[in-house]
């Protein structure tokens, strides 16, 4: 009579079955561990990509053109402390008089599904250490995945090719140039 303890048949099959089960569990664990680590970070790829798009757009505007000079610097220099979304500069080639030219330039350079806000940040008076933030382009409230790209522009008094607006003329002096941070906030819709 065969009992549970006396039956010696099929041991290899039993061991093989156990080993297969172990291997399958180990494989599942490894794959699931990877998925848990990666899933929350996939958004970072989109953020990095969006930031690169913003940096590229600002780089294009901040590049010295043999005819127009540095477009971004023109925009900043001619900004006259105007309120949000008003026309800043409308005589350069890819600007347009029917709207905020900087808004149009950035709209051309950025993909259609990307919205953006633009701020000029500068130290209003070096002696008071006051940082002023002015919203120049406002396209709404940034989404949760918004990223920021930045460029510095320095305005010098009497710099040829970059006439200053009346507002900057009152703050920029020969011994006191104005450093302006152009902050581009982008988000995908």
């Amino acid at each position, binding site marked *: 009579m065969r009992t549970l303890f006396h039956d010696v048949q099929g041991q290899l099959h039993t061991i093989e079955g156990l080993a297969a089960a172990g291997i399958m569990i180990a494989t599942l664990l490894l794959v699931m561990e990877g998925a848990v680590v990666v899933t929350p*970070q996939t958004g970072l790829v989109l953020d*990095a990509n969006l930031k690169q798009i913003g940096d590229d757009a600002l780089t294009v505007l901040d590049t010295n053109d043999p005819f127009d000079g540095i477009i971004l610097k023109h925009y900043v220099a001619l900004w006259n402390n105007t309120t949000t979304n008003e026309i800043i500069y409308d005589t350069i080639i890819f600007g347009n008089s029917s709207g905020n030219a900087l808004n149009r330039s950035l709209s051309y350079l950025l993909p259609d599904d990307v919205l953006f806000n633009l701020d000029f940040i500068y*130290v209003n008076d070096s002696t008071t250490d006051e940082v002023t933030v002015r919203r120049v382009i406002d396209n709404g409230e940034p989404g949760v995945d918004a990223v920021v790209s930045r460029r510095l522009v*320095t305005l010098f008094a009497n710099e040829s090719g970059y006439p200053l607006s009346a507002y900057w003329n009152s703050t920029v002096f020969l011994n006191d140039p104005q*450093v302006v941070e152009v902050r581009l906030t982008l988000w995908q819709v």
Partner: protein
Amino acid sequence: MAGINPFVRDEGGQWILLSGLIIAVGLIVLSILLNQAMMAGGRSPEAILKFPKDDIREFRWEVHRWAHHNVSRLSDGAYISNLTNQTMLLYGSRGISVNLSVLDVNATNQTANLTLFITDGPTTCNFRREYVDCIHESI
């Protein structure tokens, strides 16, 4: 033969057993590779977003532009202090510390030696004796 353990005596299905083992090991290796690839995919953008390469490049670039605008003015203490102070406040408002010292300026040769420093805490960058040649560099 009755005394020999059937586990040792059974020699059938060796190839099936061996191939099963190879497939299992292959699956584990593939899983590890897949896992590592996914980890790398997650780490790269994290590194891109956390390392302040744009801030470092922008600060260095802007200082070069100051030199190119008028290199001899860099030896004017009040002038360079105004520029440095504004930049320190702009970067400082988002937790980044920057500093600039002018070591020497050669107005005749249109060159300057500068020291730049920038840190956001985890990353610190020092440009010691940064050489600016305003004639041969194009900005």
